[in-house]
């Protein structure tokens, strides 16, 4: 199926997220969209999928103009979409999620899930998915959830499949598998629109690349184009793709975790006998696929997890068993992985969020009374220092853009004397400029002599920040490796392979991997 977008514009109020965009996706083509945060990629795809009505422009399917009044129309026309944020009902089973909206019934509206299960099994067999139709989606790892999303599209006979940042949450291995699947789909005649920030993948799989900047198409490029050129096209200026920082000057180890075990509510050990140390002036980055115990590890250190055993000592003081407040007071800075859930109170002002864990201390409070003037003064300082783009410090934090929300959290946590700094996904969803800034702040904190624990699923970020890298798999420590460890090795470790075996396997794989995929190692874009 050939899909054409002609002169598409989409305005939100007076702001144009897409302006006069032309895009043609040929039959059986993998068409890649590149662009920085907020460039308008998702908006364009939402228009294509019938979720947004375009302000101007047409969509043509096989040369004929079509109007999509809703996703139903788009699906009927053969367009399927896997959203950036998964559109799965967590409490439904895989089969229920797949059936939803296109249910097979046995008269009288009775669901016939068996039909759906059968289809899921067929598709799973064809593409090598391992998906249990009766598993609850909320119990599944993200990689599998993503396959469910793809199955949803395939079940509806999608001829054009939109994949919006499908690899953001996957391990390198899972990513490779997904790329394989995409090639198979392409071979079967499905067109794919693929959105990703990771140039390595884009180059590996796409037939043609379109770059979007500030809502406009700025050019097309072949997959063979050098990464630096692509990055420059996206951002509109030359970009340095590597982070340079001075070598660490580790001091004594003041943060020690010993045999830490966290039992999840369902009885599984989310963190299983973990031991490591971090020295002053050192960054330990924890890599691993989401859901392998990173969340529980950081939350256990902060005292947020109920069933914990082992020992966590900071400067010789045991932290386990203390309240969150005591732990924060003892000098732990904490950036949670999901800022909107755990980091910010969206309806409170930026100023209030900047003292969210300091509100009852001098100078922001005296006794029971808070001191609004101090809170305001602090806000003015931090907004300035961290370049937080907000209409005013009194604006509700929830109205800021994602990157700026993240800066609020970081500003708060980095604005007091720390003895330990923990940050999960410190730059998730943040644009290049801000990433650079936040990374520099983290490194500065390290250089000030604070032990730093970073958790990130982005290998690029791990590489950029880490002095040492720890890899978690199913709650266990697979190993701690030095900073320069190649991503292939890390990828295998993230799948549970021990460091030495991973190294061996990675060397073997590298030879098999396609052309220029491995010479490009950095690239925060």
């Amino acid at each position: 199926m050939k899909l054409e977008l002609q002169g598409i514009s989409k305005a939100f109020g007076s702001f144009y997220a897409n302006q006069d965009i032309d895009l043609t996706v040929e039959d059986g083509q993998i068409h890649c969209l590149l662009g920085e945060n907020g460039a308008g990629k998702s908006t364009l795809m939402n228009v294509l999928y019938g979720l947004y009505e375009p302000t101007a422009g047409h969509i043509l399917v096989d040369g004929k103009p079509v109007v999509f009044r809703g996703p139903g129309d788009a699906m009927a026309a053969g367009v399927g979409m896997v959203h950036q944020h998964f559109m799965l009902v967590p409490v439904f089973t895989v089969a229920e999620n797949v059936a939803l909206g296109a249910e097979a019934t046995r008269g009288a509206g009775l669901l016939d899930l068996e039909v759906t299960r059968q289809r899921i099994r067929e598709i799973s067999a064809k593409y090598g998915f391992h998906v249990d139709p009766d598993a609850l989606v909320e119990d599944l790892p993200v990689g599998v959830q993503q396959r469910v999303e793809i199955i949803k599209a395939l079940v509806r006979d999608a001829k054009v499949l939109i994949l919006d940042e499908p690899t953001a949450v996957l391990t390198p291995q899972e990513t490779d598998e997904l790329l394989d699947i995409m090639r198979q789909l392409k071979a079967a005649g499905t067109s794919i629109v693929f959105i990703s920030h990771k140039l390595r993948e884009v180059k590996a799989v796409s037939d043609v690349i379109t770059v979007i900047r500030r809502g406009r198409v700025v050019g097309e490029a072949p997959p063979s184009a050098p990464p630096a050129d692509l990055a420059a096209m996206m951002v509109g200026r030359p970009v340095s793709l590597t982070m340079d920082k001075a070598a660490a000057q580790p001091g004594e180890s003041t943060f020690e975790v010993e045999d830490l075990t966290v039992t999840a509510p369902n009885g599984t050990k989310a963190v299983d006998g973990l031991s490591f140390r971090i020295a002053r002036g050192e960054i330990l980055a924890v890599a691993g696929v989401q859901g392998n115990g990173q969340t529980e590890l950081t939350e256990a250190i902060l005292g947020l997890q109920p069933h914990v055993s082992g020992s966590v000592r900071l400067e010789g003081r045991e932290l386990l068993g203390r309240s969150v407040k005591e732990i924060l007071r003892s000098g732990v800075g904490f950036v949670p992985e999901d800022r909107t859930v755990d980091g910010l109170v969206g309806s409170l002002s930026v100023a209030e969020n900047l003292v969210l864990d300091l509100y009852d201390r001098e100078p922001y409070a005296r006794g029971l009374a808070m001191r609004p003037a101090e809170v305001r003064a602090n806000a003015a300082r931090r907004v300035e220092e961290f370049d937080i783009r907000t209409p005013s410090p009194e604006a509700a934090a929830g109205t800021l853009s994602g990157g700026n929300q993240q800066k609020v959290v970081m500003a708060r946590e980095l604005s007091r004397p720390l003895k330990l700094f923990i940050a999960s996904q410190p730059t998730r969803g943040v644009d290049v400029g801000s990433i650079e800034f936040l990374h520099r702040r983290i490194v500065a904190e390290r250089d000030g002599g604070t032990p730093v624990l970073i958790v990130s699923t982005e290998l690029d970020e791990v590489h950029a920040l880490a002095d040492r890298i720890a890899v978690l798999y199913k709650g266990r420590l697979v190993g701690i490796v030095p900073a320069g460890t190649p991503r292939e090795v890390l990828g295998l470790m993230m799948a549970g392979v021990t460091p030495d075996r991973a190294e061996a396997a990675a060397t073997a794989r590298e030879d098999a991997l396609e052309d220029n995929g491995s010479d490009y190692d950095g690239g925060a874009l």
Partner: protein
Amino acid sequence: MSAAAPAATAPATASAAPVSWKVPATLSVLAAVALVVFGLFGSAQTAEFGISVSGDAFALPPVRVPGMATSLVLGVVMAALAAYSVRLKLAGRPTPGWAGPVFAVLFVFSFLVWVVASARTPSISLAGLIAGAVTLAVPLVFGSLSGVLCERSGVVNIAIEGQLLGGAFSAAIIASVTDSPALGLVAAALAGALVSMVLAAFSIRYLVNQIIVGVVLNVLVSGLTGFLFTTVMQEDPELFNSPGRLPIIEVPVLSAIPILGPILFKQSVVGYLMYAAVILVWVGLFKTRWGLRLRAVGEHPKAADTLGIKVNATRFWNVTLGGAIAGIGGSFFTLVAIDSFTKEISGGRGFIALAALIFGRWNPIGAFFAALLFGFADNLQAILTIIGTPVPSQFMAMMPYLVTVFAVAGLVGRSRPPAAEGIPYVKG
């Protein structure tokens, strides 16, 4: 194809769950109470339980049990269960699912034997107790089913009370004017649906906080029915407030089965509708396309939207349907229980229904049993005051409410509402 594809299933390293002391501790305390209070300090009188009411086909003789001895035996069994639960806990394993209900039944039985044996007239009709529990539960069940439909589709329904009251009023006035209780039933459903439509319109179309709308609708319906009662119905009760009653329909033979017969096969249309509604809503919610979509818009409206499901329309019509169901429940007051309307005839039962729905974890069957538990406790306290307990009547009247608090705090605990409940869906 990647050669190293790991099996992509959930990591399921089963190991020692963090079993809490809650269940073993609760069971132990209850077993001790049963043994000591019901057993050792129980009355030695013989307790008599009637299991047939006159009219049953095969009238069974009442069951008589010695008070103290029975309670002691039951107490020992409960203590054993509690000990088992404690042992499992010590071994780091949870108490099996069957233990709770079994224990509850034993406890209730032991309690019954104890109170009956120590009453002035140590004899109660078990059949009557249970039949009455169902009767008292009827409006609660309808009310909580309405709540299930609304909240499962994402709209908080505090207006159950108003829906019941509106249903009761319309049933009375329409049945009176048309001389047809059946039409009254239809009118009740329509009135409930109308209340619901206001709830839906304000919360979906105008994005008004759903709790505000619910609370206000209760007041509105109360005021409106009160006003019309005074100005219209009271002016000519013959014409406007004598709806006649829906007949009790007995299924021959089956209705004569002891205990079960009267509750299952000797009901008014509304009573049968209740069972039908519970089953239909359950099947509908979990086994049909309609239910799948309904639950989807209540859990993740955006996902439903991306699959071409009209979120707000789905919500609107299901909230309306819920109102219709509650309206039918309201007709119970004026077409079944008695045959006239008075102000506030629903007497706060909408709020109990709300509690039952949460207690029943947003599940029709759960809500049904929660309502039944409430009806049981309520009827039991009534019967106990009749056979004469030394406990002051006001404390007996508290029983159903205290039982609910105990059940919710002690046994049920945290429950998970539909994820998108209370949050209006705005596209884009």
